[in-house]
């Protein structure tokens, strides 16, 4: 998982003090947020508004808010997001920080080739209640890097490092795209976030919807992974989804993985989404089988409801159940929260997690984040 989505990543002990410029950065982020809010009050920019444009020797260079910087005729676009987070957990632990930017770089040299990468820069500044001063933990990481090739909707090839297409949350897990600052356990703890290899994917269309599929496997040595959570040495899987134009979707996943020298583990999953009206979204997913890293059967699910209460303000409720492998005790979690989206490229989230017991898997408490697409 991207560090940008981590809620409680401790500041690096080796990082350099950042207290001197932390207030400046915090002020900058708040100023950008306030500016966006003012834009909403005075008439929000349309979704594809051109914010800035300049005719140059390489063609028209355009920046669109939340849609990136398009570099003229080069077919190269640079965009991304940044996030500020704060949490106060039951028991008194507290932490907060501003992530560095996650950059999207995409390049479409031909209609049949789409090259994409997501680079992260680590944590710009962070502080924890039990540590003195703020710390910076900057690093350049490659969250994703792949190429898509194909001249047909029915069949394409992806090659490189990409997010594991299991369920509904993991394929788009970053802060600006999800409804809560906390992440479901079945997404966080069960399978590898990414696959380094290849994937065949495609889509077939039918009245009122489309059936999409993906078949993938690890064929390359993984790179830039968390040493504490090494990915499976071999893995393969598939995902199929029916997405209706009427606002609902159903998916099913299968994932097999083999840790170094270990047995193969098999995991299955189902997921769904339903938007009964423009203001309500219901979603959920379940997994069952064996996860990547630990032996033994597990299962878990989450069900989430999102309701737009007044314009741009959303109320979120989520129930989770997770039964870890081995002798671990099953845990029930309840998240309630609010998300405010004053403009489409800015998202402020606050949610509180309640647990039926304290567990190292997920501490109950308050989590919040402010994320900005650029």
């Amino acid at each position, binding site marked *: 998982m991207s560090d940008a989505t981590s809620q409680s990543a401790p500041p690096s002990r080796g990082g350099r003090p950042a207290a001197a410029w932390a207030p400046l950065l915090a002020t900058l982020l708040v100023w950008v947020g306030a500016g966006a809010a003012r834009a909403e009050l005075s008439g929000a920019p349309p979704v594809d508004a051109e914010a800035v444009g300049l005719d140059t020797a390489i063609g028209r260079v355009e920046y669109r808010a939340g849609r990136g910087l398009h570099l003229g005729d080069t077919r190269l676009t640079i965009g991304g997001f940044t996030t500020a987070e704060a949490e106060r957990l039951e028991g008194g632990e507290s932490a907060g920080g501003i992530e560095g930017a996650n950059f*999207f770089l995409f390049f479409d040299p031909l209609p049949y080739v789409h090259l994409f990468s997501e680079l992260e820069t680590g944590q710009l500044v962070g502080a924890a209640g039990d540590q003195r001063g703020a710390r910076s933990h900057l690093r350049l990481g490659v969250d994703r890097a792949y190429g898509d090739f194909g001249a047909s*909707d029915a069949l394409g090839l992806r090659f490189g490092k990409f997010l594991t297409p299991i369920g509904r949350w993991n394929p788009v897990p970053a802060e600006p*795209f999800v409804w809560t600052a906390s992440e479901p356990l079945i997404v966080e703890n069960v399978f590898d976030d990414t696959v380094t290899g290849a994937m065949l994917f495609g889509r077939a269309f039918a009245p009122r919807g489309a059936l999409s599929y993906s078949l993938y496997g690890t064929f390359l040595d993984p790179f830039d992974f968390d040493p504490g959570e090494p990915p499976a040495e071999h893995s393969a899987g598939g995902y199929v989804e029916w997405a209706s*134009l009427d606002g609902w979707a159903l998916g099913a996943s299968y994932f097999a993985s083999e840790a170094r020298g270990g047995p193969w583990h098999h995991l299955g999953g189902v997921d769904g989404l339903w938007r009964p009206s423009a203001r309500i979204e219901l979603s959920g997913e379940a997994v069952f089988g064996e996860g990547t890293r630990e032996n033994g059967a597990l299962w878990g699910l989450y069900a989430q409801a999102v309701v737009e209460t007044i314009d741009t303000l959303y109320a979120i409720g989520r129930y989770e159940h997770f039964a870890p492998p081995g002798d671990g005790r099953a845990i029930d979690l309840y998240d309630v929260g609010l998300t405010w*989206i004053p403009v489409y490229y800015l998202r402020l989230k606050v949610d509180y997690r309640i647990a039926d017991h304290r567990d190292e898997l997920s501490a109950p408490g308050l989590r919040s984040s402010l994320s900005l*697409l650029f």
Partner: protein
Amino acid sequence: MAARIPGLVLLLARFAIAKQVLPTRPAARTPGLVLLLALSLLAPATGGERDGVAVIVHPDRRVELSVDDVAQIYLRRKRFWSDGSPVVPLNLPAADPLRERFSRLVLRQNERRLAEYWNRQYFYGVLPPATLASTEGVRRYVAADPNAIGYLPAAEVDGSVRALLRLD
């Protein structure tokens, strides 16, 4: 031009009521409303909200599409024509009433839902369809590019493009 005259009469009738040229007291308003209703019924389906929306392609693009196909194209899920050429969908500016109407008729989602959708696509480097400033720009682009698809008020379709669908 002749087709627009009843619409103009309707506008004048509304103006007359607003300026109290026609009676406005409750008891006396009824004849004015009847007149207004009659004029409304006379107005043909042209101009503004009552005009149809035509989905257009290049004249050489011999293809039939359903409304669902057009929706999949404008959501950029359907990326290629059946001959393997890339589809180039064209939009009008977000605030354009014709685009709002097109989105309502074809995509059946409001702007906030669509923004959410495009945010998630942006995470994969997929951007919304290109935007042109005017219907004239859309018509000329589609007339010049066999891979393009756009939409116009049905009354603005001419021989330089082919109308695939008419949405009312």
